[in-house]
């Protein structure tokens, strides 16, 4: 369970994030959407204690992230390319993450078997360093690394960006599969309203650092999201509403 209590971040006098009270419960697939600069990456960075909060705090399972390192066993994440190590091959990278997560070689290869389709024979078993992979493949490596270790919380910042369309749908299914397990909490941010509306159980819209909408997903969620961002209400025919 993740709690943001009175969480604020200021840069040069401007408040870029202000969440008085946000609680993400276990088992939620939490989606964060917002325009560029709305504060999504800032929020995730605060959850992972990569930046210092100007005010307030974040608790993961009651552990304040800024005060202790114990939450690291419960959380895994992929934010950007600084979460991959360019000079390792993907296999070595997964081995490294596996070691950190208490998985032995067998565990790691069993785990990776489930992703052979996702990787499309371009990533595993090749001797290419991560820095020499295409951007999309680098992303895949980082995202899959975040799924390793059976952690309670998984944080993914814009996981769908830079992936080819079929991979995006595969990732959607992967996330939904993991989300079915009630003991996992997944935090995702994305610009793709379609993916978010499909995958997430709860969606929060950030605007200029504040949560302006916080809703549980329903069938109308996608339409509501689109309406929010485009300002255009899609006309539904009388027939549909029946």
């Amino acid at each position, binding site marked *: 369970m993740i709690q943001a209590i009175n969480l604020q971040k200021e840069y040069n006098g401007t408040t870029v994030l202000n969440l008085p009270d946000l609680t993400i419960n276990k088992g939620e697939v939490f989606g964060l959407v917002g325009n560029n600069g709305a504060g999504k990456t800032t929020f995730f960075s605060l959850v992972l204690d990569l930046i210092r909060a100007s005010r307030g705090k974040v608790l993961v399972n009651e552990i304040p992230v800024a005060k202790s*390192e114990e939450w690291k066993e419960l959380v895994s994440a992929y934010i950007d390319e*600084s979460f991959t190590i360019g*000079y390792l091959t993907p296999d*070595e990278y997964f081995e490294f993450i596996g070691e950190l997560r208490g998985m032995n070689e067998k565990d790691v290869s069993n785990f990776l078997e489930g992703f052979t389709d996702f990787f499309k024979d371009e990533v595993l078993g090749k001797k*290419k360093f991560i820095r*020499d992979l295409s951007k999309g493949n680098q992303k895949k490596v980082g995202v899959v690394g975040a799924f390793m270790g059976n952690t309670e919380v998984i944080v993914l910042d814009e996981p769908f960006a830079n992936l080819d369309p079929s991979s995006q749908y595969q990732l959607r299914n992967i996330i939904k599969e993991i989300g079915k397990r009630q003991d996992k909490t997944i935090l995702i941010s994305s610009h793709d309203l379609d993916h978010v509306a499909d995958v997430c159980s709860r969606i929060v819209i950030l605007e200029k650092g504040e949560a302006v909408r916080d809703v549980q997903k329903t069938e109308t969620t996608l339409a509501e999201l689109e309406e929010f961002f485009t300002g255009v209400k899609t006309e539904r025919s009388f027939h549909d509403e029946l």
Partner: protein
Amino acid sequence: MKRNFFYFAWREFIRSASRNKNMATKGVLIFFAIYFGLVAVFMGFQLTEKLKDLENPVQTFNAMLLIYFGYELVLRIMVQNLPTFGFQPFLLLPVKRKRIARYMLNKSLLHFFNILPWFLGLPFIIRIAAPALEPTVFWAWLGALFFMIFVNHYLAIYIKWRTNESDVLFYSFLGLAAGVTAIDYFGIIDFTGAFGKIFDYILTTPVATLIFPVLIVALYLLNQGYVNSRFYLDELNKKKKEGKTHNFSWLNNVGDYGKMLSLEVKMIMRNKRPKNTAMMSVLFMFYGLLIYNDYDPNGPEFILVLGGMFMTGVFSMMYGQFFPAWHGKYYPLLMAQNMKMKQVIQSAFFLMAVTNVVFYLLSLGYMFITPKVLYIHFVVMLYNIGVNSWVIFALGLNSKTAIELNQRAAFNYQGVGATQWLMTIPVLFGPLIVYGLLSLAFGKITAYVIFGAIGLIGIILHPRLIDYFTRQYLKRKHKMIYNYKSK
């Protein structure tokens, strides 16, 4: 395009995020340039004195030219920066590639090596050559020298480009250089004399100078052709795409921090900059040959302390200089993953300690010069591990720039800020000062004992000190993540 490229280069420099550090580094480099320039002028005067009373001073001078230009060529190849230019944005604009190539080559002329010969040669030229030769001959000869500098410049660039791409070429070039030097030295073929004769020829036939500008143009065009053909994004920095992977999993058995340790080793082995650093530190082992050569067993032992410092400690000093910036590019991963900060510190300490010991053992080879090496290097090694490691950790707290792992190490000033320059003082001179004071106060043997004891204490206390630094690095975590993000 109306604006010339200097417009962009200037702005890039001024607006760089690390501008202050860049300026400070440039300031230091200018200082060194002036210093070496003055040294060169001084040597130039010495040269003039020696040649003054000879029969044919100018000819003797000419005979030495090959030695100078030969060494300069090799030095240039090692030291001179290849002209680079962030040309990617310009590739898609209506700017001729030839123009970009010309800019790169022209800009490269602004290099200290193109001025240095003048510092050396001016005293001779003005005091001896000018009065001795007739005006036309004099100007022709001077012109030849002038052009020769640029010939060397472009030759060095071309050779460097070619040898960068192919290891075969690199080693063949080294072999060729060594071979020529040896042949000349042993008098089998007199290369220096022959080269000197070219310039003598100019003295008799001034017009021959014109060969040089032709040579320069030819080399310039050669370089230009090379650059033009490499304007593809994936070719100007030719990377090997296939990785040679070694599994260092045996390191995992070292302890909790073994995973970090095997990552460190992979980092060093697989990336140009740390790898070059490591290889250079191995070369430092031969430093002893330089300074221990004429060691008189009853002479000052200070030299042995200095040598020991360098030879046992060089790797940990060079590695420690940029700790933890080596991992800067993926620092967020290490911080957010299930890797405790303590393990990062522990593996760095272990790495530095082990290399100290290994280099100490290697340095025992110098015992054939004097057996004192055994214990002097030993206490210096203890000091390096027990004291300098902590100094390095303390200074690493100020780390500001993530190290770009794939650039070469020699004369790469990226990531070098005031901290790095200041670091040399406590790390290098600190022990010397401590030793000096101790030996003055207590005499040599006691000094060594105390010196080693200080180091030993630092080693015994290492668990507590590691905990201390773990807390410190955790405190600075956010700042360092932030610093590493900016370019």
